[in-house]
């Protein structure tokens, strides 16, 4: 049992840093999507990658790096807030844009226009 704990304690910081790094890279990917996608509604989808996967991975990684339980609790609270408020603000944004009459692009897009216009 002690060997398992020792291995875990040696392995934990590396795993935590790796998860934080993966989360940060996912945030960059989501941002690239926000820059590339053609209209507001599709950008909303790309932004939600940051809100969900990137935030979860980075926070789990930080929890593995955390020196004490108090910090894990705080990270859990941050994660909970993000997951409770994220969809609400996304929905409010989409709803406000739709109510104001912003029409989404429908149908297959791509091939001809590749950049963010």
């Amino acid at each position, binding site marked *: 049992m002690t060997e398992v704990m020792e291995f875990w304690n040696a392995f934990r910081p590396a795993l935590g*840093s790796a998860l934080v790094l993966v989360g940060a890279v996912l945030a960059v990917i989501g941002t690239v999507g926000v820059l590339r996608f053609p209209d507001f509604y599709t950008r909303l989808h790309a932004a939600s990658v940051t809100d969900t996967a990137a935030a979860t991975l980075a926070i789990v990684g930080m929890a593995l790096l955390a020196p004490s339980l108090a910090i894990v609790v705080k990270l859990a609270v941050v994660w909970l807030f993000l997951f409770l408020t994220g969809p609400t603000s996304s929905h409010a944004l989409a709803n406000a*844009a739709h*109510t*104001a*009459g*912003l029409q989404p692009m429908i149908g297959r897009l791509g091939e001809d226009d590749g950049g963010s216009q």
Partner: protein
Amino acid sequence: MTGFEGATLAIDLLNITLLTILFVVAIAIARLRSLFAIVMLSGIYSLVSATWFVALDAVDVAFTEAAVGAGISTALFLGAMVLTSRTAKAEKGATKIVPLLVVIATGAMLIYATIDLPGFGDPNSPANTGVGVDFLERTYPEIAIPNVVTAVLASYRGFDTLGEVGVVFAAGLAVTLLLGFGERSLGATVRREDRESTPNKDETES
């Protein structure tokens, strides 16, 4: 102090990038004419500067900046925007040059003043040798609050803080009265909504 290898380098790079972002946002705020975009960008500005304060170890300032700069002032700017127009007028001629000169002169003076400052975290600087050490030693046994800044603000100079809170409260009250977040604007909104169901003027901006 630093928890990981290479942390100092990363923090230096972080400081430089954050300052660059602040610079870009400030230039954009000065150049843009759409007031809504300016309000959004000023929210981003105070948010990024709050992050920068954290990187500089000034956590309490960062707290204030995040709460007041990014939260309250964005709302107040939006409230003020309703009373004015949507786009700013372009300045012309001398009004463009004079503020720039003033800002450059002030910045030069500030940079000149930093030459005299002691190094960052210097243990022999006046702030760290005089009364500061005394506060650090006595605060926790006397007041039992771990954060020294909070203890000084709320206890040692509590009356001063009380006066400040009174001033801020009066200012907030005055702003609320002037902008009319209360019944007046609510009534106006309801009346306007009866006339037209959805606002359609605002979905795009120039």
